[in-house]
């Protein structure tokens, strides 16, 4: 069971309180009707499925109820950071550095 830092509760909480909610930073167009078929399929069907750092959404469904975003390494399963919905993607290079340093500490 992972520990996940909820940016709204401001603490790490057990994974069973959370639900995964797919890839992050996929915005619904305000002009849905104007989307081309290709545009729609990109929005709805295509996902990156990255090996390495991925940006994904979680909901603290059995906690504060909020959706938020996380950067997680799909190889090590480690969370690099979590941040509130609507906030921009964090700087990846900095996060990976932090992680390396954290690893060296232990």
């Amino acid at each position, binding site marked *: *069971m*992972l*520990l996940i830092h909820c940016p709204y509760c401001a603490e790490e909480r*057990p994974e069973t309180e959370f*639900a995964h*909610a797919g890839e992050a930073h996929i*915005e*619904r167009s305000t002009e*849905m*009707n104007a*989307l081309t*078929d290709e545009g*729609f399929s990109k*929005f*709805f069907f295509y996902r990156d499925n990255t090996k390495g750092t991925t940006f994904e*959404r979680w*909901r603290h*469904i059995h906690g504060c*109820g*909020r*959706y938020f975003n996380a950067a997680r390494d799909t190889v090590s*399963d*480690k969370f690099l950071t979590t941040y509130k*919905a*609507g906030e921009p993607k964090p700087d990846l290079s900095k996060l990976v550095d932090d992680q390396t340093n954290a*690893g060296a500490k*232990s």
Partner: protein
Amino acid sequence: MNAPVLIQPNRIAGKGRLSVADPMRFTFDGKTLPALKGDTVASALIANDIHLVGRSFKYHRPRGIVSAGPEEPNALLGIQRDVARHTPNIRATVQEVYDGLEATSQNRWPSLKYDIGEINDVVSPLLSAGFYYKTFMWPRKAWDKVYEPFIRNAAGLGKAPVHKDPDRYSSQHEHCDVLILGGGVAGLSAALAAAKNGARVIICDEQPTFGGALHFDTDIVIDGMDGFSWAQQAMAKLAAMDNVRVLTRTTAFGYYAQNYVGLIERVSEHLSAPSADLPRERLWEVRAKKVIIATGSIERHMVFANNDRPGILLASSARTYLNHYGVAVGKNVGVYTANDSAYAAAFDLKEAGINIPAIVDIREHPNAELVAKAKALGIRVLTGHGVMAAGGKLRVSSMSVAPVNGGAREVIPIDSIIMSGGWTPSVHMFSQSRGKVAYDAAKSRFVPGVYAQDCVSVGSCNGTDDLSAIIDEAIKAGEEAATYVRPNTSQVSISIEANGGNAWEGTLIGAAPGAEAGKVVKAFVDFQNDVTAKDIRLAVQEGFQSIEHVKRFTTNGMATDQGKLSNMHGLAIAAEALGKELPEVGLTTFRAPYTPITFGALVSHSKGALFEPTRKTPMHESEVAIGAVFEDVGNWKRAWYYPKGGEDMHAAVNRECKTTRTNVGMFDASTLGKIEVVGPDAAEFLNLIYTNPFLKLGVGKLRYGIMCREDGFIYDDGVVARIAEDRFHVTTTTGGAPRVLNMMEDYLQTEFPHMKVWLTSTSEQWAVIAVQGPKSRDIIAPFVDGIDLSAEALPHMSMAEGTICGVPTRLMRMSFTGEMGFEINVPADYGRAVWDTLYEAVEAADGCAYGTESMHVLRAEKGYIIVGQDTDGTVTPHDAGLDWAVGKKKTDFVGIRGLKRPDLVASGRRQLVGLKSIDGRSVLEEGAQIVEDPNQPVPMKMIGWVSSSYWSENAQKPIAMALIEDGFNLMGKKLYVPMANEVIEVEVCKAVFVDEEGGRLHG
């Protein structure tokens, strides 16, 4: 105990820590044997001079006790408390004796001494490495009937009990600053240091008493007392501290992400008559900020011919039996070693009066002091010699000794051999934490290398051999862990003074002299899985290069002991055969569990009534009282039908449907999902979520709404009531309630965060009673206050607030039956009383209660869909005949763009239509496939499937709904439903079978 005291031939007076004042009895294969309190089954058996305890897995060779701990590969017994409490494969070295314990040997028939499966030993060339894969390949047909039953009978390890497990298993989540795995010198030192510095500490050890190697190593003195006594005192000191939890008989079995460690505490396995409230085991799910691994090391056996004969044990285990349990492993004990530790064991045995005919050391020049001491004690030391083979069968009787470099053999009679091939650090937990091991070539061992988690290894599991160094390392780790977790606590340093304890030198991994390549002998690497040195060489010879493949082909290390003794030997033999350096071949992966654990402990509370929550509506007990039969809908128990006077389901449903259409019926609709949508932008929000327009829905009005996903497929449906300008009462399907709320929250939080709208689940705030039928208004009218129930004031699809039976209600005029009807929402705690009151009135009017089955029939008679039954995640509102519910003028809603996708507007989509059976009596099977031509060759082209099908008592014919390609254009067409024994002819029709005009809704 009144029975005469039985003699325990190998119990040595004055040795060990058990008291003769605490005698116990147990049985082994039906024979009653004496034991002492604190004995394990293994120590008690050896005390009674019993070494033969089982037959091996493949060759059915006689096997004895090899170790004194959890690494035991051979001594697996069935332990039985009563008929339902029989546990197979219990390690005799771990199971403590309790008075009345019954143990039975396994894997033998008809008896331990005469086992028919022993023939396998003779035909063993047929059973070499990979024999499963080779022998049973052909003919394929023989697999089910011949090979598999044979393998299962011959290869079984014990018998599983057939009765339901009557025991309790408990579980607990626990958090701490520092979790310490292992209660030996290292673990205890670390725990004392961490605890003194204010850390929340948990320390666990798998044994009943702390001390680890101090159980056998009596040469150690710590803080002025013997090592074992120090350990007991340290443990008592820790147990008395508020910030420390001490767990004995507790095995750390799994190390998972983020320092999440699973422990199993064996609570009652050692008790003669445990309380019924006491769980058998407790699962601890520990989350630690820092883990200190102090799991020690495990002695290895020597790989020589017939090294599996009963009476051959690890040297340190023999020492444990003597020094802790007061039991000598034999009267005439040979020693075979590559490591110094066997000398200490030999000395202890000799000093206890046991004859030691020889120490056979493969090393040319072992430690001179030890050799001198041996000689001083009168023990013959044969350096540069090996044991070429052990003699005897049911018990070892001799060892055949020869110089390592060749020469004449000498046969030395013995009744036991103790052996040591050196020590393997227990890196299991470290490795499970995803840490990478490093190879220490000088000592032929793997030690912790690169850490992956917040943990640290101390003591001999870390490759630290010297006692003082171990203590220093452990104290440092404990102090640092405490400071790491609580940097602001003032630091306290502790010191522990220790003397004695030798860093034992010498190692042998792989086959010993006499079992080298080319020798046709059975020198066992893995006792439990019957893997010999030869098998591993054969695997390499057959082309297996990777150690993971060698492992699977030979099954080396795959038994319940997970290769605690065998892994290093197997690796060394494979490396030699491959002509590679050992680290190049690599170590197999360590996986949880460290030792076998029960499913009971993992399941813990999740069984019986706690397997899943059983959800009941507020009216449940009243429904039980009137004879309802219930069905499971998700976790809900829903009244399915209400049989009367011996009716079967069919008769009850026919009556309920008929009564509801002609008179009145009432139905418990409480499980419907309900969401209160509140806020100034509530209408705007619902307009985006539903396909229907919602902006103009008046206060007090209802609207049936469909919800799609962005891809345009139906996700859920329900009726929405506008309670006030800024307040809606939304209903969802029973199963859809959580996911609809989740989806709405998702849009609200992430796509439309500017909207001032909030959602609250009210599914369980309201009990819902549907009263349906021509007399429904007459039934409820006398109980309703504050609401005008007339058709003009409260027409179909409208609602009002008032009271019913004096209870506040949201009264909705709506219908899922096609009849005039009402859905009465009352606060849940009043549901039962309102139901009872109305039911009395309904019964008096010759109406009835109807269940979910009749609800399904009644709605199907009207062609009303059930999402998830008549839709399958690929059905659009148009496909379902609900195009009218899609707001054509809307500029946005969830699914608006998806609905325009080329595939969704193409012709030939499956569309929901009705089906009539031409014969007027065949009720189709739900899920049945539909074809155009029943005479076409198989596989036929399916053009659709039946989604709903019932006998309609009201229409006096079978009715069905089906999703059929281009169905809307096939009205009147004959199609076919091929079944196993017949082909049913059907005709496509509109999905309405009763009151096509819909006039009955508006009475």
